[in-house]
């Protein structure tokens, strides 16, 4: 142990260029503000190094695998260090960051290592919803080292990171399938298909930068200063044609003080989930993205959104929900994918959330998807609508085609279109339209696009902070 300590000190004394980038001490030093790392236990042969430090002044606990010792595999001693780091983070109520590069449980230690890895999982679950947990995966994270990050709130994958339960050798011997580590669990599958990873970065430097940003967003949320919130006129961002889809990202970026950190950007891209700040205070923004699947909710996007809502609620992060949703995506594929079961998660997540949550309807809010997107009925703190908004079960024309099917069929063909239009106008007056929504109290206020940021900031400043009393199961 002493020998190792001396070696670590010797490398540390060298210039920055000679530092081994895989050395866990190097990684912890890069994560923390310069000179703030204090080790929780001396370096040893356990394959894990733990420490406390600061990120932009905010205290954070972290641990790092040592890939130079048995490939970073986790044994009883290393796991003990991680559990101790978790105890420290929970006691101090500070975020914890795991820097992963590990082949999984130590084979040589047999069942003892399995038992230890399981104790790490239990510690993570006890800390769930209590302190923010962030994982960064730099190299292989296999087996137990895959489920470690997966249990945490946010997972960042660097370009060389690989997350899988069983590696290519096992896959080949069991199924005969030839597959690379990258195809099994690299950036491509995890960013688009599996939803395991929240952020993929092109390199390690960027991975550290994102981990630092997320640590501060969740660890130091700040207070809203409505006076600092400059207005932006969002109206040029909506296409003139109300049927035309558009990319919602510029709108989300504009609502925030500066572009935030988008989570799961390529997985279920029909809903956008971003952590950022308004008036200096951390918020979570959810927005339908009409550019993808028309902005429809579907099974995967509902699940992605539900997990985001529950994470924000668990850490007291207020929500801003930007709604432009034509409905739930119909089809056999969706029903068989469990759009009912997985869609119910979003209803549950919003209905249980206690954080301030503001809804802004920009264009369409139709049907079941209207309810799911933080409607008044689910307990929205405040519901704003732009003058362009429509709140309805479905579009007026579609509605009268159902409601007045017989009348329309009986009308002479040349009069049918005119009749349909007049019935639709009548229907809109009675059943849909913004006026009715305000009369019912499901929309509180019409707000102009150029007054939106201030309106949101004022609600955030007025509401009492709250936080859900629940964990953050990786839905």
């Amino acid at each position, binding site marked *: 142990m002493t020998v190792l300590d001396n070696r670590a000190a010797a490398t540390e004394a060298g210039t920055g260029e000679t530092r081994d980038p895989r050395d866990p001490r190097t990684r912890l030093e890069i994560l923390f503000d310069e000179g703030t790392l204090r080790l929780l236990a001396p370096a040893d042969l356990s394959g894990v190094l733990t420490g406390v430090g600061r990120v932009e002044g905010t205290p954070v606990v972290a641990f790092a695998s040592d890939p130079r010792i048995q490939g970073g595999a986790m044994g009883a001693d290393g796991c003990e260090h991680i559990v101790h780091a978790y105890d420290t983070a929970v006691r101090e109520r500070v975020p914890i960051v795991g820097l992963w590069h590990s082949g999984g449980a130590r084979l040589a230690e047999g069942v003892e290592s399995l038992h230890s890895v399981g104790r790490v999982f239990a510690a993570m679950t006890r800390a769930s919803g209590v302190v923010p947990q962030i994982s960064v995966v730099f190299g292989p994270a296999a087996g137990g080292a895959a489920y470690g990050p997966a249990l945490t709130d946010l997972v960042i994958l660097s370009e060389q990171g690989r997350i899988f339960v069983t590696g290519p050798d096992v896959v080949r011997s069991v199924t005969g399938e030839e597959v690379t580590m990258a195809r099994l669990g690299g950036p491509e599958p995890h960013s688009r298909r599996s939803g395991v990873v929240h952020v993929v970065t092109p390199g390690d430097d960027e991975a550290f930068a994102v981990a630092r940003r997320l640590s501060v967003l969740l660890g130091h949320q700040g207070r809203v200063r409505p006076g600092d919130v400059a207005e932006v006129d969002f109206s040029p961002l909506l296409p003139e044609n109300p049927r035309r889809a558009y990319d919602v990202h510029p709108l989300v970026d504009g609502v925030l003080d500066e572009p935030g950190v988008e989570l799961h950007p390529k997985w279920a891209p029909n809903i956008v989930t971003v952590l950022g700040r308004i008036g200096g205070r951390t918020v979570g923004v959810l927005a339908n993205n009409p*550019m*993808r699947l*028309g*902005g*429809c909710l579907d099974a995967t996007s509902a699940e992605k959104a539900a997990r985001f809502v529950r994470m924000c609620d668990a850490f007291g992060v207020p929500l801003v929900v930007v709604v432009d949703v*034509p409905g739930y995506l119909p*089809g056999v594929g969706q029903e068989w994918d469990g759009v009912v079961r997985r869609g119910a998660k979003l209803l549950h997540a919003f209905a249980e959330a206690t954080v301030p949550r503001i809804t802004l309807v920009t264009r369409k809010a139709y049907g079941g998807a209207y309810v799911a997107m933080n409607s008044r009925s689910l307990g929205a703190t405040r519901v704003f609508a732009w003058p362009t908004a429509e709140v309805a079960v479905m579009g007026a024309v579609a509605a009268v085609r159902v409601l007045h099917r017989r009348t329309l069929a009986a009308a002479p063909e040349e009069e049918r279109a005119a009749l349909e239009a007049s019935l639709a106008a009548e229907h809109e007056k009675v059943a849909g339209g913004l006026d009715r929504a305000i009369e019912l109290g499901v929309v509180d206020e019409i707000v102009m696009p150029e007054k939106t940021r201030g309106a949101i900031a004022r609600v955030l400043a007025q509401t009492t902070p709250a936080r859900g009393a629940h964990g953050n199961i990786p839905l």
Partner: protein
Amino acid sequence: MAEVHAEMVGSVLEVVVAEGDVVGGNDVLIILESMKMEIPVVTEEPGVVSKIEVAEGDVVQEGDLIAVIDHV
């Protein structure tokens, strides 16, 4: 080479590019009508349109090939 597939069922309202056209990233290839909305289908990366597999009025299913883009 990148294949662009339909994300959802819909009918082709407009084919915006032709085979041989040079496209940038995020350029509109076709406009799909679905869920009573007009949804542009865009490129991810720049390249040359080497194949357009759909025509105006076609109905495409989720996963159908729309276009092939050769990266230069």
